[in-house]
């Protein structure tokens, strides 16, 4: 089976679509199991977001006495911090997954997969789907912990699903972009090196502190940062009545980013195949 991923006709034909799905499913399962077997690698994606959320809610709870905050943003700082922690956890997890991919490429395992009769698209999509599955598990665990700690989902059960979906789509977007970077560079160092950049973007958004209280150029950057709007959509699920804008922000933006990311990743894969 020699499906070229650049060939849309082949992609569209029903038999290859079926095998693509099957292969994707198999590779997804393999990838998820692989991720869950390395708890030490996943641990930081759990520990740090929860630590920052705990720290934030203990440090900034006074903010809850600010009238603007209580009226427009959140009922408590803990309730505010939940979305930031979810965002952070998903971004951490997706980056480390891309690091695995880069390691596979570096060690030649990826080449072996490419040599097998498995669809090349499935190899990439399998990884991305696995990231989404891990993200769903992660969001559910985070939510359970936060609910026990006293957080409330103001938008109800649909909001809960909204949060999970947002997390999964964000994982897809981030994993796709990072996978593109991993395939393009083939070096775990480059992927690791991109990580501080993700951290910077997170700080320059409303993930840790409301945009409303930022000033000057910092505020301008945060206004333009897509992460601000994604996380605010999720904060909406936590703190307000259900609304369409929450889905638009936390689902649609990651969805668009995911499409760009997947296009980038597949293009990088094609280039790598053409080069070898």
């Amino acid at each position, binding site marked *: 089976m020699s499906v070229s991923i650049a060939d849309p006709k082949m992609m569209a034909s029903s038999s290859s679509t079926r095998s693509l799905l099957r292969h994707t499913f198999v590779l997804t399962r393999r990838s998820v199991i692989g991720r869950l077997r390395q708890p030490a690698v996943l641990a930081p994606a759990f520990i740090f977001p929860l630590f920052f959320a705990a720290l934030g809610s*203990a*440090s*900034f709870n*006074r*903010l809850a006495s600010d009238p603007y905050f209580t009226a427009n943003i959140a009922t408590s700082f803990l309730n505010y911090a939940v979305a930031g922690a979810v965002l952070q956890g998903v971004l951490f997890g997706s980056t480390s997954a891309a690091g695995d991919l880069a390691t596979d490429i570096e060690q030649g395992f990826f080449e072996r997969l490419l040599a097998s009769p498995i669809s090349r698209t499935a190899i990439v999509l399998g990884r991305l789907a696995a990231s989404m599955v891990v993200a769903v598990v992660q969001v559910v665990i985070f939510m359970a912990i936060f609910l026990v700690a006293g957080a409330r989902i103001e938008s109800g059960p649909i909001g809960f699903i909204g949060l999970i979906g947002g997390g999964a789509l964000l994982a897809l977007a981030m994993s796709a972009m990072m996978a593109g970077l991993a395939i393009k560079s083939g070096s775990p160092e480059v992927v690791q090196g991109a990580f501080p950049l993700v951290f910077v973007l997170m*700080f320059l958004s409303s993930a840790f502190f409301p945009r409303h*209280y930022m000033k000057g150029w*910092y505020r301008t950057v945060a206004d333009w940062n897509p992460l601000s709007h994604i996380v605010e959509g999720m904060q909406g699920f936590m703190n307000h009545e259900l609304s369409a804008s929450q889905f638009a922000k936390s689902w649609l933006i990651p969805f668009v980013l995911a499409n760009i990311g997947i296009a980038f990743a597949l293009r990088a894969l094609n280039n790598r195949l053409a080069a070898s």
Partner: protein
Amino acid sequence: MTEQTVNTRTISDGARPFEVVAILVKRSMMRVRRMPSAFIPSLVMPVFQLIAFSGAFGFAVTSLGIKNALDWYVPLNAMQGASFGALGVSFGLINDMQTGFFDRILMAPTPRWVTVVSSLAAAVVRCVVPITFVVIVGYIGGMNTPGGFMAIVCVAIASIAIAVVAAGFALGLTFRMRNLGAATLTQFAIFFTIFLSTSQVPLSAMSGWLRGVARINPMTNILRFARQGFLGDVTWEQSWGGIIAMAVLLILTFIFAMTGIKKFDQ
């Protein structure tokens, strides 16, 4: 070749410790100059954090009456930069252990404390640049120093002390573990010690568990010492707690490093 016989040889009468410290510090600086890529993160990170903290959490501290968020975060990030810079000493030592260069130093007739002291001294020299960098960015950002020159002196003392403590802790762990895990563990230790103190907001703004932890965390005292000149006058009352905390930590980490090298020597 000169004619040499066993009896006429001038056997070395042992090294002069301070010359050894000086040349080992010089070597550490030289490595920084010749391999700047390893040093740059310890310069960029504290400045980024300064901008991020004051940009993101600015309101949280200015709403408590602090004039400029930088007044609160410059001392913190100077100390953080100094401590991360000190980690370079641990990385350097691990590198020396792996290449065998450390054996060369151990085989020389110099006392063991010289090895520890020169690493700590190197940490001090290394931290000067990040501290200066953070303070300059603070000035550009318009931070206030009502304590005048003493404000800067206090930040410098606290940062250097933290750099030495971090380096001593890293050395002690490195001698015991002999791998990069030591540097990672030190990083975690610094991270949690700093964040579980008054790093982000004053004690009065904290609630619950964090307040309890921050209150007994020696870092809180050291931060109070470092910040006083940025928030008001430098006074003995705000200083003594920090001075004691620094002294105790310095002694403990020096002992930890010395017992570490003794263990390594077995």
